[in-house]
């Protein structure tokens, strides 16, 4: 085992910290309040070349692994930007992974250089109102138009960043019927053509700088070359990206927890009640210490999962474990930060309530804690499938 600090990783973290330092908590509070996309922040990250760091070098990217990409997202989240900052660029950074792995040359040549430059906004259209975790029930359908292309109709929900995005990675049914397994699903990188789709933001608890949307597709034409990988293997192609997604989100969750603890510690070191700093009370300090330890443990598991993925090793257990631990640690940290602030924690100007709203999301997305336990119980412990 070698835990020697990697100078590249330290340099990446420091550089991202510097960029993020320009955008303080007040900036993110305003973006969240006004439901405004953080364009200034996005442009700063694009100019620094950070959006392309996991895109292969042959397409103008940095050719780095999930380990390095995770550092970028962790530092963004820890700056106080949280999910608002990470989701603004997450899909441009990582969403095209199925295109990198399975896409045809025309798709790669057309879109990857633009993603590497931060010039391409990508949305992810998988979830449907009646097909959440049970992806086999997808009903949005693509039918052949007889000229080599496809016509897409249906409805997706929780398509993050649809309002800003030019293209969407769209999982649709080309064959078979809902509930009959995954064989009939196909993946496209389609234009979000506003003439044929209707995009409606979903009012939600937090992360409001980046809208999550309901998207209605009404006979939207898609060229044949926009198919990613093979017909009927769309779910398989997406599956390939699920472990990296869990690793990345674990890093985001831990970053939010770090930001929350930082604010809580500062407050506990300044706020005096009954003639003493509240941080001197173990009822305050012990939960914060516990939160810190839980975050550190989750980060270690996330680092292990990322290392295994980047080295081509099976990482399902580690990625799911990291995601689970990070979500719990993040929420505990944010909740304790809010508790530390007392009534003021409920006020927006102290920012921990924003972290708390975002930390809560970690326990339900991109996969619920319960489904993560199901995975570990069934696939690691060898227990019977429970659903």
């Amino acid at each position: 085992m070698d835990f020697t600090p990697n100078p590249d990783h330290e340099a990446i973290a420091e550089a991202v910290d510097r960029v993020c330092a320009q955008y303080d908590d007040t900036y993110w509070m305003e973006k969240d309040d006004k439901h405004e996309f953080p364009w200034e922040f996005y442009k700063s990250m694009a100019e620094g070349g950070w959006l392309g760091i996991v895109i292969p070098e042959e397409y103008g990217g940095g050719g780095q692994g999930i380990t390095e990409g995770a550092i970028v997202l962790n530092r963004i989240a820890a700056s106080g930007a949280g999910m608002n900052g990470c989701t603004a660029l997450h899909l441009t950074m990582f969403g095209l992974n199925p295109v990198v792995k399975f896409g045809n040359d025309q798709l790669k040549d057309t879109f990857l250089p633009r993603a590497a430059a931060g010039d391409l906004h990508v949305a992810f259209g998988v979830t449907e109102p009646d097909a959440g975790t049970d992806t086999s029930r997808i009903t949005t359908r693509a039918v052949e138009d007889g000229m080599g292309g496809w016509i897409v109709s249906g409805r997706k929900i929780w398509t993050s960043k649809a309002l800003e995005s030019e293209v969407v990675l769209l999982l649709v049914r080309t064959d078979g019927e809902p509930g009959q397994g995954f064989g009939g699903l196909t993946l496209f990188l389609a234009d979000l053509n506003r003439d044929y789709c209707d995009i409606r933001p979903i009012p939600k608890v937090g992360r409001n700088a980046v809208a999550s949307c309901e998207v209605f597709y009404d006979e939207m034409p898609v060229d044949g070359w926009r198919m990613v990988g093979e017909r009927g293997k769309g779910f398989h192609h997406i599956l390939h990206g699920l472990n990296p997604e869990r690793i990345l989100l674990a890093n985001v969750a831990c970053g939010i927890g770090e930001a929350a603890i930082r604010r809580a510690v500062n407050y506990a070191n300044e706020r005096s009640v009954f003639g003493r700093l509240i941080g001197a009370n173990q009822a305050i300090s012990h939960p914060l210490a516990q939160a810190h330890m839980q975050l550190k443990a989750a980060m270690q598991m996330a680092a292990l999962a990322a290392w295994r993925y980047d080295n081509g090793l099976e990482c399902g257990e580690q990625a799911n474990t990291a995601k689970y631990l990070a979500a719990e640690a993040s929420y505990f940290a944010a909740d304790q930060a809010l508790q530390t602030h007392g009534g003021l924690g409920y006020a927006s100007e102290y920012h921990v309530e924003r972290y708390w709203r975002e930390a809560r999301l970690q326990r339900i997305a991109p996969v619920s804690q319960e489904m993560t336990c199901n995975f570990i119980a069934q696939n690691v412990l060898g227990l019977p499938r429970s659903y």
Partner: protein
Amino acid sequence: MNVVVCVKQIPDPADPGALDPGTKTLKRDVKLILDESDTYGVEMALQLVDKAGEGSVHLVSMAPNNERSGLATALAMGAASATLISDPALLGSDALTTAKLLAAAIGERDGVDLVISGSESSDGYTGTVPTQIAAVLDLPSITAAKAITVDGGQVQIQRQTNAGYDDVTCSLPCVVSVTAGVVEPRYPSFKGIMAAKSKPVDERTAADLGFDAGQVGWAGAGQEIVDIAAAPARSAGEVVEDDGESYTKVIEFLENLKVI
């Protein structure tokens, strides 16, 4: 346009620094970072070279333990190469010795048009090194520059003063120390960080630069640190009860600070 920028690598000001009671100097055996005040000089140099359309920015730094973390930051910003002076014999060197060593490293290079440095380091604050370098190299020295323009063989400087700034013109080559001025230091980009790894850093010892052990470090220092003491704790602020006229106290306070 070939510019040399003197940069210092210092302990991170965000971490509480510590003085070594034995040497009575700042402990510098921790990871060092690029002094933020030097980022302005690096940025000015990069802009001047960009504008000239030819030449490069070379860094010169003196640091213990072959430390190069701060150099890596400046190389990631866009500097082309660096000279790192590092030698255990340099421990205890005073400002003048430092200036002589930096000047020797600068003097090794051909075709230097301009030498830029910060006004003073954020850990030592002597503020004397830039002028001393100029004296050793027998070059003109201009301090407190907030803007630099190169025109032919001359440089035009806006030199910060208490009242505003002076316009100064000087022939090249010269040594200019800069303040946190009108430039906004760029952030290292991802590609800049990766490219910095392969940029040349020449390591030089005191002997390489023509100094023997008696001329540098404690032995060569013309000064002695007699004593060190902790900074006094910050005193409580003045509380003014507002009787309707307290604004005059505010004005008086600001006038004393010379900010109005």
